[in-house]
C-alpha cells in the first residue's frame, strides 16, 4: 500500500515539474493561435533558442544561472519581433495550410541551424550548486531542481495570470482574443498588441525551454520532437485561453509521467489515445472559446 502511495507521490511530483515546463512553453502558443489565429508550428523553436543560449552561456562561459536564463529569454524576444513583423504578419488570415507550411519551413531551418551552431548532441545542463542535489520535503527526499521548477513555475504562472487580469495590456489581449474587430474599433492598436503578445509568448517559451532543459533536453530537433506535446496542451486547453492550457499541461504532465512509469512498453501511446478522446468530446478544448 505504502508503495502505491510512494509511487503516486513520485508521479505527481515529477508530473507537476514537467507540467510547469510544458505550460511555460505552450502558453505563448495558445495566445498566438487565439489572438492572431495563426497556426505557429515553429513555436518550439523559441524554447529551444532560450535553452541553447542559456546552456551554452553556463557551460562554455561560466555565466551564472539566472543571468544565463535571462539572456536566453531576451534573445528569444528580440528575435521574435522581426519574425512577426516581417514574416508572420503577411499570413494573418491566410489559408491554414500556408501557415502550416511556412512554420514547418522555419522549423526545418532551425533544426539545421541548431545542428550547425551547436552540433547534433543534446546540450549538457548543470543546475547551479544551490539547486542541485536532494531536498527533504516531509518524510521523503526530492530532487532540488525539480522542486525549484515547481515553485518557480507556480510563481510565474501566478504572476502571468495576475498580470493579464490586472494590467491594461492583459485586458487588451483578452478583448482582442474575444473579438478582434471590436477591439480594433475601440481603438486598441492590434498591430502593436500582436507584436507585444508574440514577444511575450516567445519569451515565456524561452524561459520554459531554459528552465526545463533538464526535463526536455536541448537538441537540434527539439521543436519537432516536442511539437505534438505543445499542440496537445494548447488544443486540449483551448485556443486563446490562458488558464485552460495550464490544466491541460497538468493533465498531460502527470498522465505522461504516470503512463511511462507504470506501462513503459506502451510509451506515449495512451497519451495520444487520451488526446483523441478528449478532442472528440470537446473539439474546442476543455476551456476553449468559439
Amino acid at each position: 500500500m505504502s508503495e502505491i502511495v510512494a509511487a503516486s507521490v513520485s508521479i505527481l511530483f515529477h508530473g507537476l515539474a514537467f507540467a510547469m515546463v510544458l505550460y511555460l512553453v505552450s502558453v505563448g502558443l495558445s495566445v498566438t493561435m487565439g489572438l492572431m489565429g495563426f497556426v505557429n508550428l515553429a513555436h518550439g523553436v523559441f524554447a529551444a533558442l532560450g535553452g541553447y543560449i542559456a546552456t551554452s552561456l553556463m557551460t562554455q562561459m561560466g555565466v551564472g544561472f539566472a543571468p544565463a536564463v535571462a539572456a536566453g529569454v531576451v534573445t528569444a524576444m528580440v528575435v521574435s519581433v522581426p519574425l512577426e513583423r516581417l514574416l508572420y504578419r503577411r499570413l494573418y488570415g491566410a489559408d491554414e495550410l500556408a501557415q502550416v507550411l511556412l512554420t514547418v519551413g522555419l522549423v526545418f531551418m532551425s533544426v539545421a541551424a541548431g545542428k550547425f551552431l551547436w552540433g547534433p548532441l543534446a546540450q549538457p545542463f548543470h543546475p547551479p550548486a544551490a539547486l542541485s542535489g536532494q531536498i527533504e520535503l516531509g518524510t521523503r527526499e526530492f530532487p532540488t531542481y525539480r522542486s525549484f521548477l515547481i515553485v518557480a513555475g507556480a510563481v510565474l504562472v501566478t504572476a502571468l495570470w495576475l498580470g493579464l487580469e490586472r494590467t491594461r495590456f492583459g485586458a487588451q489581449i483578452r478583448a482582442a482574443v474575444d473579438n478582434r474587430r471590436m477591439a480594433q474599433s475601440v481603438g486598441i492598436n492590434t498591430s502593436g498588441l500582436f507584436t507585444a503578445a508574440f514577444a511575450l509568448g516567445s519569451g515565456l517559451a524561452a524561459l520554459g525551454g531554459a528552465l526545463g532543459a533538464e526535463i526536455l533536453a536541448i537538441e537540434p530537433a527539439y521543436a519537432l520532437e516536442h511539437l505534438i506535446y505543445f499542440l496537445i496542451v494548447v488544443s486540449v486547453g483551448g485556443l486563446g485561453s490562458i488558464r485552460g492550457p495550464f490544466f491541460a499541461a497538468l493533465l498531460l504532465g502527470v498522465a505522461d509521467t504516470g503512463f511511462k512509469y507504470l506501462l513503459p512498453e506502451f510509451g506515449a501511446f495512451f497519451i495520444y489515445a487520451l488526446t483523441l478522446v478528449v478532442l472528440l468530446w470537446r473539439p474546442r478544448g476543455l476551456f476553449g472559446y468559439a
Partner: protein
Amino acid sequence: MTAEAATHVTAASVVDAFARRHRFHWAEALPWIVAIGAFFVFPDYLALGAQILATILFGLSLDLILGYAGIVTLGHAACFGTGAYVAGLLAAHGWGEPVSGLLIAALAAALVGFVSGAVVLRTQGLTLLMLTLVVATMLYEAANKANTITGGADGLSGMDVWPVLGFHFDLYGQTAYWYCLVTLFLCWLIARCIVHSPFGRSLTGIRENERRMHAIGSPVFWRRLTIYTIAAALAGISGALISQTTQFVGLGVLSFDRSGAILIMLILGGVGWLYGAFIGVPLYMIMQDRFAAVDPVYWYFWIGLILVLVVVFAPSGAYGLGDRLARALRRRA
C-alpha cells in the same frame, strides 16, 4: 440562321464544352513519355527512379485529400507506413508475392484511413490538423514499441520478395522501375477517374465552400471519409512499393518527417491539379539526392528556406508559376 437557332448553338456549345472537360489532353502523355524515356537515358539511376515513382503515388494520394477535398493533414505517413509495414511483414514471414502483398497492404491502409477518418473528420480546423498528427504519432509509437514485430528502430529486415509476374527484382532496379511505373499508371487512372466524376466534382465544392455543400443536401462527412479512405489505400500501395523494392522498412515511414516531406513535395508542384506530385516529387528527391551526398544538414536548411519562399511568393507552387507565365506569354502575343 434565325436568332433562336443561334442561341441554341451557343447553349449546346457551352454544354458540350462543359461536358468534355474529362477528355484526355495530349499533354497528359508527357509524364509517361518522360518516365519511359528515363529508363533508357538513366540506366544507372533506376533504383532512385523507382523510389521517385512510388513517392509520386504517395503525393498523388495526398493531392486527392488536400488539393481536392481541402483536408489539411500532418499525418498522411500513417497510411503510407501501414502499407509499408504490412507488405514488409508479409514478405518477412513467408508470403513474398508482390502484387497480392500490394493489395493486402492497400486494404490495411484503407482500414487505417477509414477508422481514423471516421474519428478525425468530425472535427475541423486546428483540431483536425492536430488529430491527424496524433494518429500518425500513435502509429509511430506503436511500431516503435512493438519492436519484436516491427524491428523497432533497427527496422524490419529479412524480407524476401518473390519475382513479380515472373520478373526477378534485379540489382539494377529494372524490374523495380517497371513495377512502380505500371502501378503508378494504374493508380493514376483511378485517381483521374475519381476526380472527373460527379463525386470528385462535389469534393471541389466541399473544398470551396463546405457550408454551401450542406445547404445543397450533400452528405459532406461521408464524401470526405470516402476520399480519405481511397487516398489511404493509394498511400498504402505507395508504401508497399517502397518496402518491396528496397526490401527494408524503417520507422521513418511513419514519421512526421515523411508526412512533412510529402506535403512539401506536393506544394512545390502545386495542389489540386493532379500533376503537382509529378513535378514536385522528382524535383525534391533529385535535389535531396544531390544534397545528401554533399551535406545532409544543409539540405534541411535549404528545403526549409525554399518552403518559406514558396509560401510567401509562390503559394500555388509550380502550377501557379506556370499559370502566371502562360498568362504573361499570352499578353505578349
